[in-house]
């Protein structure tokens, strides 16, 4: 009799176990919701974006390689032209140029904050960087429009709108992201590498350049790709300074466009289900796939860094 009671007590779920189970169910529900939302977004963008190809009969290769973009009017070939190459080129140009310009500044600032003046440098620069991250992109765009564009116009001539202006604005926008991730990467370099290097007779600069930066390369690359992902997806600020001409840019100061700028300026003016609208969704699909690629690159670099 007593044994049965003990057995029953042992087999009964404890209060703690029940709470545990409930907690697990709640967190699983949250994760499931997020996954569902992501899948829904992918499905929606893909179904709309792919409609251009199977519904409106546009060739995928022509979409990616043709240079003229006029989905709302009949072109010389008797049908609307949906060549997205100018936007793809525009997006990649501003992204890569912004990353190229931002990287040396980010590494310099990060080294100053970590290795050179780690106490007061970080104290002053960290809030500045946090502030820069928090500034809305429309403010960056406005400053680009009223300062950068006129400056380029004065120096190089032309309208001032174009890839160069976009690069400048994006450079400032991604600088804090890349800097703070570079700072994290440098902080993650174990201090015993620094001691080992110093004990071998390295100067501080030798230790920094040959050991710390080298060991931090995977982290720094991750930061750069993060910055590029942000630059690639930025719409408003770029739209304000790039000129919004859907043609292949001839140089850095001729008006151009990016995937995002065409999307934001066009999506409100088209009818759902029409070719114009579907073509914009195709651009969105390209954007989404590129974000995915950036993500995979980040994971790949991170994985390689962990292995070493």
């Amino acid at each position, binding site marked *: 009799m007593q044994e049965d009671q003990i057995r029953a007590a042992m087999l009964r779920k404890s209060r703690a176990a029940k709470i545990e189970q409930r907690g697990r169910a709640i967190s699983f529900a949250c994760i499931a919701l997020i996954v569902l939302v992501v899948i829904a977004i992918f499905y929606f963008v893909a179904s709309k974006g792919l409609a251009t190809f199977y519904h409106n009969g546009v060739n995928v290769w022509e979409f990616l390689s043709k240079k003229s973009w006029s989905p709302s009017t009949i072109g010389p070939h008797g049908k609307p032209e949906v060549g997205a190459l100018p936007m793809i080129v525009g997006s990649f140009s501003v992204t890569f140029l912004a990353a190229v310009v931002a990287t040396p500044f980010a590494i310099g600032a990060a080294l100053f904050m970590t290795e050179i003046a780690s106490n007061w440098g970080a104290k002053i620069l960290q809030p500045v960087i946090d502030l820069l991250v928090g500034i809305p992109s429309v403010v960056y765009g406005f400053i680009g429009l009223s300062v950068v564009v006129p400056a380029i116009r004065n120096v190089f001539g032309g309208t001032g709108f174009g890839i160069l202006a976009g690069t400048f604005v994006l450079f400032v926008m991604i600088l804090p992201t890349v800097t703070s991730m570079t700072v994290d990467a440098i902080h993650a370099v174990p201090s*015993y*590498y*620094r*001691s080992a290097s110093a*004990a*071998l*007779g390295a100067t501080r600069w*030798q230790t920094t350049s*040959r050991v710390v930066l*080298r060991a931090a390369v995977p982290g720094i690359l991750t930061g750069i790709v993060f910055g590029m992902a942000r630059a690639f997806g930025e719409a408003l600020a770029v739209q304000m300074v790039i000129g919004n001409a859907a043609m292949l840019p001839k140089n850095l100061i001729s008006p151009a466009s990016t995937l995002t700028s065409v999307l934001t300026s066009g999506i409100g003016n088209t009818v759902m289900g029409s070719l114009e609208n579907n073509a914009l969704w195709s651009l969105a699909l390209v954007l989404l796939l590129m974000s995915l690629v950036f993500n995979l690159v980040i994971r790949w670099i991170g994985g390689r860094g962990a292995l070493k």
Partner: protein
Amino acid sequence: MTHKNIITSRDVHIYYGDFEAIKGVDIDFPEHEITALIGPSGCGKSTYLRTLDRMNDLVPGARTTGDIRLNGEDIYAANTDVVQLRKRVGMVFQQPNPFPFSIYDNVVYGLRLAGIRDRAMLDEACEQSLKQAAIWDEVKDQLHDSALGLSGGQQQRVVMARVLAVQPEVILLDEPTSALDPISSSQIEDTLLELREQYTIIIVTHNMQQASRISDRTAFFLQGNIIEVGPTKGIFMDPQHKETEDYISGRFG
């Protein structure tokens, strides 16, 4: 056999902020001998070791007074080139700390710092140093693989090769085997005994058997003071102080 003293120190005090970690230490290190610094945790033996290549300079708030000379030169003099000093006095740390580079790049790191670019010279030094550290045979086919792929004992010997490549006069070792298994430890000990011919070695160790096996002289540290220093045999067989006897017989520590 009497050797001339390569390092002499007189009345060395080391402070971390207000805390006096070393309270007036006098000790000399003869050339081509292995000196073991022993003592319980926190007695200051590692702290003392790190003053000899001025690694304590990197610790915020650390301050050293007294007179420490390497071949008669005051290493705490205002005009001492710390970078040069650390090339003459190499250091191996407790945790194996190879850089996350290839074995080759690790070993020639110090030479490249000195501006040596000649490939043949680097290759030669790499092989030489790895042989001296008794690890050449194990790694000669994987010189360009990451040093982090090696076992702890192998890493520690690559680290020793990295120090040897710079051809220092003195090698400081801060508990170099305490993170290793017994077999790796004894390999390191054998290596040290061979290196004694060419280098002066000062080793901090927790392991008293190790001190008695490999060292010519032993210094016993306790609470920031040297209690006793002398030939290892004398310290272990016939300690002059009660504290020394208590420590080596395992009564405290």
